[in-house]
C-alpha cells in the first residue's frame, strides 16, 4: 500500500492528512522541520526564556476529523422532500417530518434555479435570503465569505444581517466606552503576551473559559502560555457561575456570582477603589471623561443608593469579604482583565443588559490605567504573540462577503448586491411569519458607530422591498445556536415560506426542514489556500496561536458519495441563472488558488509549485528583535497608535493618539449614546447594573427558580462536531450513554438535585414555558447552587414528536429553552444566558 501525505487546514489547526488507497487513514499536527522551516520567536522575561513548541497543536475536535468526513451523518446525495412538489402542492407544514427522496444533481439544480428565477420574477430579488453559519469548512476561498458570498451578492438577495452572537455586549456596549467599532467592540491584542510575561502579576478571567472557547481557530497553542504564567507566579482569578474548564485547572481563586449580576459586582469594585482611593487618578483625569458623574452614581450621591459591597453581595450572592478582597488585590497588583479582545467573548455579554457589564469592564480597567505595563484588557489571555505582521496574507474576511473578489477582475462586495432590503437573523422567524418587522442596529457594525442606531424594517417599505419567500441555508444550524429556536421550527412550516434549500456536508438539526438538500463536500475533498486562524477584516491579527502558517490545502480525496464542493454547486446555479462567466471569470479553482498566492507575500520566498509540493509555509519572525508594540500603550503614553491595527480610522491622522470614541477618550458617559437616546433606561449613556428581565428578581423565578447558562461547547465548534463521530460523543461529559441513547448533560449542584430527588445519571426534563429538553443529570460541585449549566450547540435536535414545534426534545438542543427577547430595547443581541428553568426527573 502506498501512503500519500497531504496538508490541510481546519477550523482548529493545520494538519497532515494521510491517505491510503483513496481513503483518509489519519490526521496529524504539523511538526516543523528545523532545517527548512522558519525559527520560532523567543520572549525573555524575568530571567526565563519562553519559546513555543515546534509544531501546530490541534483543537480536540479536529483530531477525529477523518471520522467526521466519513460520518454516517453526511448528506450523501441530493434530496427532495417527499411531499414537496414545486409544480404542485408544497406542503410546508410537513417540513421537519417528511421523508426524503433521492434525486439527481441535474434535477436538484433545475429545481433550485427555477425556483430562484420564479421567485425573483414574481416577488423580486429581495424575496430571497440566505446565510452561512460560522466556522464551516476552513479555507480562504471556501470559508463562509467565499462561494456563498460571491454568488448571492452577484445575483442579488436580501442580506440576512448577522448578530455578533458570541460577544453581543462588547459590540453594542463597549464601543460606546472605548471605540474599536472596527473590531466590533474588542480592543486590539498586539504585544500582550510579551507584556504579560514581563510585567503582569495577576490575570482575572471574567466570564470566559480560556480552556475552550478562547482557543477559537488557533488549536491549543496558547494553553502552554498558561503553564508559563504558573512558572512566573502570575495568579489566576476566575469569575464565572460555573467552574469552567480553565478555572478547574488554572484558578487560584474561583468566584461564582449569580448569573446576570456581574455588573453589580463591577460597580461594587469601583466603589471600593473610589472609597479607598486606589485607582489611577492620572489616567482618569487625562485619558477619560465623565468620571465625576460615574463617581457620584457609584457613591450614591446622585439620588440613588451607593454601590457598596454589602449591596452587591446580596445581589450577586457572594460574601462581602470576597468582593472587598477582589477589589483590593486587583488594585494592588498589575492585572490583566481577561476580557476585551475576542478570545474573552461569551458569558456575561450574552445576557440581558450584557452591554452594561462589558462597558463597566472597560471603565474598571481605565480606573487601573489600562495600557501601562502589565495592565490591560486581554481576552482569554489568548492572543497577541510577537508575530511578524509585515508579511501579507489575507484573512478570510479581508474582502468582506466576496473572498474571490480580492483577486477577481470584479468584486461583488461591498458594491455588488443590487438589493437594499436587509433582514436580521434573530428576527427572521418573525419577518417570515408576521411581516413587517422593525429593529435598530445593522448587525456587525464595523464601519462606524452610527450603524448601531440605524433603523430597519423588513420588508423594506417602497417598491424595492419584498416578503421573504425563499431561504438558502449554507452549513450549520441555527436551531441549536440561536435563541428560542422553536420559532425556527414554526417559521419553516409557515406557508409564507415557499422554498427552502439546505446546503451542507452533514445532517444538522435544521437540515430536515429543507425542500431540496444539496450535499456539500468537506474541505478535505477540494483544494484551497489559507492562513491558519486568520480572520482578517474586523478580527485581523487576533492570533491565538504561535506561528503564522500558510497552507496549500490539498484535495486529499475525491468528494464522497455525490457531494460537491460549494464553489462547484454555486457555479452550476450561476450557469442556470446566466451568470457563470461573471461568477468564475473563466478561472479553474487552481487558478484562484494561484491568484491568491500571487496576491500574498509568498512569492518573495517560494514558488507556487514549491509551496504546493510542501504544503505549508511558516512565516519568519520579525527581522529585528525589538519588543512588539503593545496594545493601548500608545494611548496610555499619548503617542500615535503604533500597533498594526490596520482598520483604525485614526491611523495616519493627527488624532492617531486617540481612541475611536467621539471624544477620543474612554467615556464614562457615552457621547454617542447621549446623542442617540439619552433617555434609554436599558442602555443609558452611563453604564450601570440593571436587574435582568429574566433573572432571580423576576416573578417568573417563582415558577422556574433555576438559572440556566449555556456557554459554547468545549468539544464541538458550534454544531459542526457534535453528533458526527462517536469519538467525540464518547468523551466523558460531552455526551453520556444511557440505555442505548447518547444524552446531553445538564450540570446541577448536588444540593439542587437533592431538593428535586434527582440522582447523578438520571434523565431529567429541563423546562420552562418555551420548551422542554431531556438531558442526563450530571451532579457537580463546579456549578453554584441555584444555577444549572449545559452547553449550547448540541447538534441533535430530536423531538419526541418530529416536526411539531414545542415538542419535547431529547437531543440536547438547549436553545429551545432560551429567550427570544433581545438584549434591551435598542440592542438587538441575543441573551441566551438569561434563562429561567425548572428541572424534574423524567419518568417515561
Amino acid at each position, binding site marked *: 500500500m502506498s501512503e500519500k501525505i497531504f496538508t490541510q487546514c481546519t477550523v482548529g489547526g493545520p494538519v497532515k492528512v494521510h491517505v491510503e488507497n483513496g481513503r483518509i487513514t489519519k490526521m496529524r499536527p504539523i511538526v516543523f522541520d528545523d532545517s527548512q522551516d522558519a525559527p520560532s520567536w523567543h520572549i525573555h522575561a524575568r530571567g526565563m526564556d519562553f519559546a513555543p513548541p515546534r509544531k501546530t497543536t490541534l483543537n*480536540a475536535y479536529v*483530531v477525529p476529523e477523518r471520522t467526521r468526513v466519513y460520518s454516517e451523518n453526511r448528506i450523501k446525495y441530493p434530496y427532495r422532500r417527499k411531499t414537496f412538489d414545486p409544480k404542485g402542492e408544497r406542503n410546508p407544514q410537513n417540513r421537519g417530518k417528511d421523508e426524503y427522496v433521492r434525486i439527481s444533481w441535474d434535477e436538484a439544480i433545475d429545481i433550485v434555479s427555477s425556483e430562484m428565477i420564479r421567485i425573483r420574477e414574481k416577488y423580486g430579488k429581495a424575496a430571497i435570503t440566505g446565510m452561512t453559519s460560522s466556522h464551516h469548512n476552513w479555507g480562504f476561498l471556501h470559508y463562509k465569505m467565499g462561494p456563498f458570498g460571491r454568488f448571492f451578492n452577484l445575483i442579488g438577495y436580501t442580506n440576512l444581517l448577522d448578530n455578533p452572537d458570541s460577544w453581543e455586549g462588547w459590540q453594542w456596549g463597549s464601543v460606546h466606552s472605548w471605540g474599536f467599532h472596527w473590531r466590533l467592540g474588542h480592543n486590539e491584542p498586539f504585544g500582550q503576551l510579551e507584556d504579560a510575561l514581563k510585567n503582569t502579576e495577576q490575570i482575572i478571567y471574567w466570564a470566559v473559559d480560556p480552556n475552550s472557547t478562547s482557543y477559537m481557530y488557533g488549536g*491549543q497553542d496558547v494553553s502552554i502560555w498558561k503553564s508559563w504564567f504558573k512558572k512566573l507566579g502570575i495568579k489566576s482569578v476566575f469569575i464565572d457561575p460555573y467552574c469552567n474548564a480553565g478555572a478547574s485547572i488554572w484558578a487560584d481563586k474561583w468566584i*461564582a456570582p449569580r448569573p446576570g449580576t456581574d455588573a453589580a459586582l463591577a460597580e461594587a469594585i469601583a466603589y471600593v477603589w473610589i472609597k479607598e482611593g486606589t485607582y489611577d487618578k492620572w489616567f482618569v483625569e487625562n485619558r477619560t471623561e465623565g468620571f465625576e458623574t460615574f463617581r457620584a452614581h457609584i457613591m450614591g450621591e446622585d439620588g440613588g443608593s451607593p454601590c457598596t459591597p454589602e449591596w452587591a453581595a446580596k445581589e450577586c450572592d457572594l460574601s462581602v*469579604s*470576597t468582593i472587598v*478582597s477582589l477589589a483590593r488585590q486587583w488594585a494592588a497588583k498589575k492585572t490583566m482583565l481577561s476580557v476585551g479582545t475576542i478570545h474573552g467573548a461569551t458569558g456575561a455579554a450574552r445576557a440581558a443588559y450584557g452591554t452594561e457589564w462589558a462597558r463597566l469592564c472597560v471603565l474598571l480597567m481605565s480606573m487601573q490605567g489600562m495600557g501601562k505595563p502589565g495592565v490591560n484588557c486581554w481576552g482569554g489571555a489568548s492572543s497577541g504573540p510577537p508575530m511578524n505582521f509585515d508579511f501579507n496574507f489575507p484573512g478570510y474576511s479581508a474582502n468582506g462577503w466576496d473572498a474571490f473578489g480580492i483577486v477577481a477582475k470584479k468584486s461583488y462586495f461591498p458594491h455588488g448586491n443590487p438589493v437594499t432590503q436587509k433582514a436580521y437573523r434573530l428576527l427572521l422567524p418573525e419577518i417570515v411569519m408576521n411581516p413587517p418587522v422593525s429593529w435598530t442596529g445593522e448587525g456587525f457594525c464595523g464601519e462606524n458607530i452610527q450603524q448601531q442606531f440605524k433603523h430597519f424594517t423588513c420588508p423594506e417599505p417602497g417598491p424595492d422591498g419584498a416578503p421573504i419567500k425563499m431561504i438558502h441555508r449554507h452549513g450549520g444550524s441555527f436551531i441549536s445556536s440561536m435563541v428560542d429556536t422553536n420559532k425556527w421550527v414554526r417559521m419553516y412550516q409557515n406557508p409564507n415560506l415557499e422554498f427552502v434549500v439546505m446546503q451542507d456536508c452533514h445532517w444538522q438539526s435544521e437540515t430536515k426542514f429543507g425542500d431540496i438538500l444539496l450535499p456539500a463536500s468537506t474541505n478535505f475533498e477540494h483544494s484551497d489556500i489559507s492562513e491558519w486562524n486568520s480572520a482578517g477584516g474586523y478580527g485581523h491579527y487576533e492570533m491565538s496561536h504561535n506561528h503564522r502558517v500558510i497552507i496549500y490545502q490539498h484535495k486529499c480525496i475525491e468528494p464522497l458519495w455525490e457531494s460537491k464542493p460549494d464553489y462547484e454547486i454555486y457555479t452550476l446555479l450561476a450557469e442556470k441563472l446566466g451568470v457563470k462567466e461573471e461568477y468564475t471569470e473563466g478561472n479553474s479553482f487552481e487558478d484562484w488558488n494561484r491568484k491568491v498566492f500571487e496576491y500574498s507575500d509568498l512569492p518573495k520566498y517560494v514558488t507556487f509549485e514549491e509551496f504546493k509540493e510542501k504544503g505549508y509555509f511558516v512565516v519568519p519572525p520579525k527581522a529585528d528583535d525589538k519588543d512588539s508594540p503593545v496594545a493601548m500603550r500608545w494611548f496610555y503614553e499619548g503617542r500615535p497608535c503604533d500597533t498594526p491595527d490596520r482598520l483604525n480610522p485614526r491611523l495616519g491622522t493627527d488624532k492617531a493618539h486617540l481612541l475611536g470614541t467621539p471624544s477620543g477618550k474612554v467615556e464614562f458617559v457615552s457621547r454617542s449614546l447621549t446623542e442617540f437616546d439619552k433617555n434609554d433606561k436599558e442602555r443609558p449613556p452611563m453604564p450601570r447594573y440593571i436587574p435582568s428581565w429574566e433573572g432571580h428578581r423576576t416573578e417568573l423565578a417563582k415558577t422556574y427558580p433555576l438559572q440556566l447558562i449555556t456557554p459554547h461547547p468545549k468539544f464541538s465548534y458550534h454544531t459542526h462536531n457534535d453528533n458526527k463521530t462517536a469519538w467525540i460523543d464518547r468523551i466523558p461529559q460531552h455526551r453520556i450513554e444511557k440505555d442505548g441513547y447518547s444524552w446531553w448533560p445538564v450540570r446541577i449542584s448536588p444540593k439542587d438535585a437533592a431538593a428535586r430527588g434527582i440522582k447523578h445519571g438520571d434523565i431529567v426534563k429541563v423546562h420552562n414555558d418555551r420548551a422542554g429538553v431531556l438531558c442526563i443529570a450530571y451532579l457537580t460541585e463546579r456549578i453554584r447552587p441555584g444555577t444549572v449549566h449545559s452547553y449550547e450547540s448540541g447538534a441533535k435536535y430530536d423531538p419526541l414528536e418530529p416536526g411539531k414545534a414545542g415538542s419535547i426534545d431529547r437531543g440536547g438542543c438547549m436553545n429551545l429553552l432560551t429567550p427570544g427577547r433581545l438584549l434591551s430595547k435598542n440592542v438587538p443581541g441575543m441573551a441566551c444566558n438569561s434563562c429561567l428553568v425548572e428541572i424534574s426527573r423524567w419518568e417515561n
Partner: protein
Amino acid sequence: MRLGMIIKCEECIGCYNCFLTCQDEFCGNAYEGYAAAAPKEGHNWMRISEMERGQYPRVKMAYTPKTCMHCEDAKCIEASENNAVYRRPDGIVVIDPVKAVGQKQIVGSCPYRVIEWNEKEQLPQKCNMCAHLLDRGEKQPRCVESCPTNAIIFGDLDDDKSEIAQLIKQGATAQLTPEFHLKEKVRYTGLSKRFVAGTVVFKDKNESAINALVEICGKKETKQTRANEFGDFEFEGLEVNESYNLKISHPGYEEVKLQCSTSADTHIGEIYLTPQV
C-alpha cells in the same frame, strides 16, 4: 535502552487530544507485525480518568491519562502463551497480533486494566508506544506529538542525559499504583493526593483574614501556611484517609481549632475569627 514515558498530571488540561489521537492511529488501521486494527470505536488504549476534587466553591479537576505501563514485571507477559506478549529490546511490551489470537486471559492479567478485547479479531490489544512509527525513525508516539502542553515526556530511561531519566533521578516521579510492584516504565508526576482548604474571615470587620496563620497537624506531618489576599488557605498533597487537626490563629483573635479527615478533598468553608476580649 528502555523506552518510557512520564505523564505530568500537573500539566494535563483535560483536552483529550491523546485519547482521540490514539484512536486516530489505531482505529481501522492495522500495522503488520505490530498491531491489528482497533475497532472503529469503543477501544481506548489511552484513556483519561477525571476526578472532581473539593466542594463548592473550592473545586478543581484532576486528569490522569492512563495507558499501558510497559512494566518490567509485566503480568501480561506471564499470562500469555506461546510468547504472544513479549518485551522488545527497547523495553516496549507488545502483544503479537497473530500469536495472541484467542488468548482472552491476557486481558484480565493486567492489574491496571488497560488491555482491551477486540471481539471481532478475538484479540487482546493495547498501547505499543507506536512502535511501528519509532521503527520508521519517528521520534515519539502520537499521544506525545498531540499534547499541547508537553504533559507527556517520552524517552530512554537508560540515557542519563534524557529529560525522563533526569526526572526519575531527581525522585520526582511515582508509579500510578506502587502497590502493584511491577516496575512500570510509565511514571507520573503531579498525581493528586488530598487537599484541605478553607477561607478565614475576621468576624468583627467582615473582611478576609489576610495573613492568618494556619497549621495542620497529622500523624506523619505538620504544615503551616498563611491565608492569602482572599483569606484562603490550602494544604495540597496530604495523605489519603488520615485525620488532621487544624489550628487558625491571628494576633488579637481567638484561636480556632478544627478536626478534619482526608477521606475526600475538603473545603471547610468560611472560618470566622473573633477578637480576643
